[in-house]
């Protein structure tokens, strides 16, 4: 399995560097804007008061929501969403391609005729997904610790949650994409479907905030599971959301493994 992990990690390294630079770069940019806005925050908040409540709620600025006047609230509104959206997209792309690429490019015929079981192939690839996403969030945790120390009072729990809660969100998309890629072997098609899911579930998140009648939808969108208000205000991720995420992630990976072991490779 070491051989596969090493190979896959190298194969995906360039894309890892690219996505990590984009995500951390964008966050740094947004965080650096904070001092400039901090002084004129009053005007900004006044302007915001004119917006409808549902709209503000969608951005975590509703009643009992985030305070953009401090760095945590600022990041929760201005940076965190990008991390979720772009990080989710990276996870979806990685999860979609890492397995399907072998069949799409027909290299699976080579791999499966070597003494390595399908189980090891699946677990090697899942390991590389987990490793890459973990490293991405590790880089983000460094960016955040520096920014939070520079621009505010350092709060360990909020920092830790902002750094590693996105992992849950990314595993969610990566695992579903990985599962789909067992059945749809055209990398591009799997990617489109899973990226659609990343955007689609964000729309679901907004809808669930806009009207009370759609509130139940929050249970199906991982954007809600790791929402910034819970992190900054309550310093936690709700238990029910943790449970749902773990269930979706482990079931997706497990089913991918079961079905992959049984499938015919007919490239």
């Amino acid at each position, binding site marked *: 399995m070491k*051989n596969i992990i090493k*190979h896959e990690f190298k*194969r995906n390294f360039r894309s890892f560097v690219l996505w990590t630079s984009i995500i951390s770069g964008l966050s740094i940019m947004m965080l650096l804007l904070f001092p400039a806005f901090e002084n004129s925050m009053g005007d900004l908040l006044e302007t915001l008061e004119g917006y409808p409540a549902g709209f503000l709620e969608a951005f975590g600025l509703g009643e009992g929501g985030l305070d953009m006047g401090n760095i945590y609230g600022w990041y929760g509104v201005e940076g965190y969403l990008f991390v979720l959206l772009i990080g989710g997209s990276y996870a979806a792309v990685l999860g979609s391609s890492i397995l399907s690429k072998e069949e799409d*490019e*027909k*290299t699976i*015929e*080579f791999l*499966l*005729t*070597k*003494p*390595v*079981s399908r189980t090891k192939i699946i677990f090697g690839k899942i390991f590389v997904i987990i490793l890459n996403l973990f490293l991405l969030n590790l880089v983000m945790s460094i960016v955040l610790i520096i920014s939070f120390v520079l621009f505010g009072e350092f709060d360990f729990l909020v920092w830790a949650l902002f750094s590693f809660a996105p992992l849950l969100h990314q595993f969610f998309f990566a695992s579903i994409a990985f599962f789909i890629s067992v059945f749809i072997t055209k990398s591009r098609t799997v990617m489109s479907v899973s990226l659609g899911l990343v955007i689609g579930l964000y729309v679901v998140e907004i809808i669930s905030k806009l009207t009370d009648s759609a509130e139940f939808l929050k249970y199906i969108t991982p954007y809600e599971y790791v929402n910034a208000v819970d992190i900054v205000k309550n310093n936690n991720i709700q238990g029910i959301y943790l449970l749902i995420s773990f269930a979706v992630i482990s079931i997706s990976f497990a089913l991918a493994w079961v079905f992959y072991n*049984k499938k*015919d*490779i*007919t*490239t």
Partner: protein
Amino acid sequence: MIKIKNLTKFYGTNSRGVLDLSLEVKEGEIFGFIGPNGAGKSTTVRTLLNLIYPTRGGAEIDGMDCVKDSNKIKKIVGYIPSEIHFYNEMSVKKFLDYSFGFHQKIDHEYIEDLIKTFDLDTSKKIGSLSLGNKKKLAIIQALGHRPKLLILDEPTSGLDPLMQHTFFEVLLQEKKRGTTIFFSSHVLSEVQKVCDRVGIIKDGSLVRIESVKNIISNQSKKIKIKTTKKITKTEAMIDFKMNNNQYTFLYKDSLNHLIKLLSSYDIEDLIIEEPSLEEIFMDYYESKEKT
């Protein structure tokens, strides 16, 4: 070495794979697996390698079950596919490291020898290799771990005649070492050169198994005659063709009869030769279809 027992594979409901195929390949022999495209050759090979699962029946390699013991089987098997799909962005050297990284014991000197024999530049990216060079790489990755069984699926496509010759030399060398070779092909003449026995598959079923020697010695001769007088076709003449004064046919009867028959003719030229396997099997297929 290989025991295929009542192997049946259907793809979906309509698409045919193989039907109730049974066949044994002895240790140390080169076995030709011959049939037209779509006959089920690749399906059989893919089942042996556990890329696909049998619908019914199964196969054993060296006493191990192709499904349950697939991992152990792959330690002793080398496979050369018909179309080469390797990681284009990798260099030849890195690819070989990756490929042999799955094996525990590797004879690096032997691999170096193979690279020299096939004259392959290991610093190049796989994507930039010509078809012939990719094939060479496929041969090296299949032979480097010194497999007990080689499975070849149309291995010579894309090789120039000179490389084909080298390739057959390597196969014969492997045979000397005791390697069993399962050689799937639709080109009969190439199989004839190296194989001990041949199995013919058609429409998913095995039609016949025969030793190459037997097929050639027991069968008809190929006759080419140039004469001015018209030859009347007899029952012993198959695949009878006439072009100006040139006649070609396969002759199934005793040659003495033919010579007697031809003694009344004014013959300008006469060639008697062994027919190729293609011609023998055409003959075989034709007579099968008539009955």
